[in-house]
Each structure stands twice: as C-alpha cells, then as structure tokens.
C-alpha cells in the first residue's frame, strides 16, 4: 500500500515538531510491548522529556510509518527529524555510549520529583540511615512500577530530593520521572511494619474481587458489566444471573464504552478471566475486576443454586 501524500506530510510534521519522537506500542507510562518498554527504559534514564506516539491507537499511522521509515517493526525512534533505529539499534547505541550523540542531546537535566514522606516513614528511614555507613537512601521505580527502597551508592546521574529534615532520597532519572507525586508511608500491621507507596502515575491494574464483594456490588445496584469468558457449552451447565457471554459482539460493545466503566470478568475458576481482564486494562479501562474463584467460587460462597461442574 502506497503512502498517501497527506499521511506522509502528517508523519513528517510529527517528527519535525519534537526533538526526539518515539513511535511505540502503548504509552511512556504503560508500554504494551517488551521492545517498546526497553527503549522507554533507556530514554527515561537519559531524557527529561520526549514525545511518544502510541501506534496502537492509530492504525493509519502504524501502517504508514512502516513505509515512511522503511522499517517494519516498532518501536521506531526519531531525533532531529531523522530515523535513529528500532529497539536493537537503540540498545546497541546505548551500550556503546553513543546514544546521546545520536540523539543530539546534552547531559540530562531531570526535574526533581515531588515526593511526600510521612513522619512515620521518615523516622524509620532516619533510624536505618544511622547504620548505613556512607550509603545513600535510594528509591527505584521500574518501568513496570515495581518499587525498591534501599541503601546504596550515589551515582552521577542521580536526582536528589530532600524529603524531610536532613533526609535525602536518590533516584535515577527514569525512576524520578515515574515517581513524581508518590507518597511513602510506613504502616505497622499484625505481620510487622512495611512501607506503602502510593503513586499516581501507576497504570491501572486488574483488581481481584471476591464472590461476596461482587454480591454486595450487585445488591447496591452498582453499574457494571459482568463478562463471562467461558464457552457456550459451559454456560449451558451453569451461569451467574446477569452475566454476558464474551463474544465478538460484546467485545466490540465493550471497546466502545467509556474507559471509566466497571467491568467484572468471570470464568470457571478465575484464571482465564484474569487474562481477559488484563487485556481490557491494556485497552485503557481503569476499573476492571476479576472474580476470584470464578463461577465455582460464586456457587460455593454466594449461590448454591448455581451448579458446580
């Protein structure tokens, strides 16, 4: 398929409008493919800001770029209007220490993130710091939003934030970008104490829902769609009242819904439905539940009239 002049001009305007542009699957905070995540991880550690385009959201751009760049895969990185390469080339340039030059960027100056450390958490950090001979307090936020609080060595690229009187926290540039706005608390429970982090940048996750919680939601009349991902054969054996079979028509209907809509996924034991639920989180839905234990758990806990099989 030949690239239309209009699309070519549109793509040209995107790569010319920003110093660095990454055409990727997903977004910077929520990459939808491992190759895109790898390149985001490398760029985050190097650049305070760059432009990304989610090719999954625009099939015309996705197809057009393959011709525009003469490159069949994603991600695709552009700098100063010129194609730099795909994931392999970015990794290779990075490993050789040549990526900054290829992108034409100076040493990164990363904005310090806003971090809120509660008095309780600060007290625990201070106590631990007294034993951490010469090491600094580090917070790492991986591109998959896993957290690591530790004492370690400072590095030259670190962003340093004073989080409380006399208490400083060190973050690599990528972590600094992802941590902005995070609150760190220390909570003591029956099992001992632990840090809790609440980060507004974290993408939505599938929430587990017990049968009793689902029953309560349905009783309250909370608007939700209960999606049965099993087969029609299984639905003939047992069905939760109000559930709908996930077929092509329902998938189409769901994908047209507001991304704030509540979706509950259900299967036999809660495994297949989790995969389906994650798929819809990937499509941007923010309130997605998986029924723990599936219809079997529902039958055992809530409604014994639903046959088990």
């Amino acid at each position, binding site marked *: 398929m030949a690239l239309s002049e209009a699309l070519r001009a549109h793509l040209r305007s995107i790569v010319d409008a920003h110093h660095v542009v990454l055409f990727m699957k997903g977004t910077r905070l929520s990459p939808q493919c491992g190759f895109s995540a790898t390149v985001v991880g490398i760029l985050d550690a190097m650049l305070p800001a760059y432009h990304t385009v989610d090719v999954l959201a625009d099939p015309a751009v996705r197809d057009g770029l393959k011709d525009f760049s003469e490159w069949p895969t994603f991600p695709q990185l552009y700098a100063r209007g010129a194609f730099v390469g795909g994931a*392999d080339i970015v990794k290779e340039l990075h490993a050789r220490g040549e990526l900054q030059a290829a992108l034409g960027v100076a040493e990164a100056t990363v904005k310090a993130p806003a971090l809120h450390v509660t008095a309780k958490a600060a007290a625990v950090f201070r106590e631990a710091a007294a034993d951490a001979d010469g090491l600094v307090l580090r917070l790492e936020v991986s591109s998959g939003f896993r957290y690591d609080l530790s004492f370690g060595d400072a590095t030259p690229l670190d962003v340093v934030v004073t989080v409380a009187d006399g208490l400083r926290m060190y973050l690599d540039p990528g972590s600094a970008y992802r941590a902005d706005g995070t609150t760190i608390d220390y909570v003591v429970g029956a099992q001992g104490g632990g840090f809790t982090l609440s980060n507004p940048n974290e993408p939505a996750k599938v929430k587990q829902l017990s049968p009793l919680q689902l029953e309560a939601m349905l009783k309250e009349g909370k608007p939700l769609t209960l999606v049965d991902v099993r087969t029609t054969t299984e639905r003939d054996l047992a069905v939760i009242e109000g559930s709908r079979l996930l077929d092509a028509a329902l998938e189409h209907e769901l994908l047209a819904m507001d991304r704030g809509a509540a979706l509950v996924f259900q299967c036999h034991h809660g495994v297949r439905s989790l995969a389906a639920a994650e798929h819809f989180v990937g499509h941007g839905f923010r309130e997605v539940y998986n029924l723990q234990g599936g219809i079997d758990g529902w039958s055992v806990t809530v409604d014994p009239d639903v046959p088990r099989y």
Partner: protein
Amino acid sequence: MSHHHHDAPAGDMCAALRASILTALPDAQVEATGGGGHYTLVVTSTAFAGKGMVDSQRLVYGAIAHLMKGDNAPVHAIDSLRTRTP
C-alpha cells in the same frame, strides 16, 4: 482478542527466513533461530560494508518484509537482528 500465529513448525519458518535473505543477499551467512512467531537473526554479508546499522538492517528487513506483513503474519517479531561483515 487472542494472538494468532501461524503454527508452522519453527524450523520451516527459520528456513523460509534464511531463503528470503539469501535471495536478496546471495553471499550472506544467515543464522535464524526461534519459533512461535519470534525469531532471532544474525546475518553476515559483504553487502553491509560501509553501511550504518539502520541501512544494514533495512536490507534484511526488506528481504523478509513479505513474512512480516499483516496482523496474522507468520513472523510476528524479530527479537534481535545483528548484521555483520565477514
């Protein structure tokens, strides 16, 4: 909503990748490994002499583009592509 790959035996697809690259770059030595739609390629050819990484990889991608076209393409991803000169 699920990913569909053509379930051709992995060896057949590696052979198809190798053959396609050899058509475009007759002197090439090609190592193709992988399966399940995901492949790793190491290609050695004099055609890459004097070329940068982007242009070298374009030569290879150009040779296998027909195997990567469309949502149900037999080659879903090239996990890693390395180009070398002999």
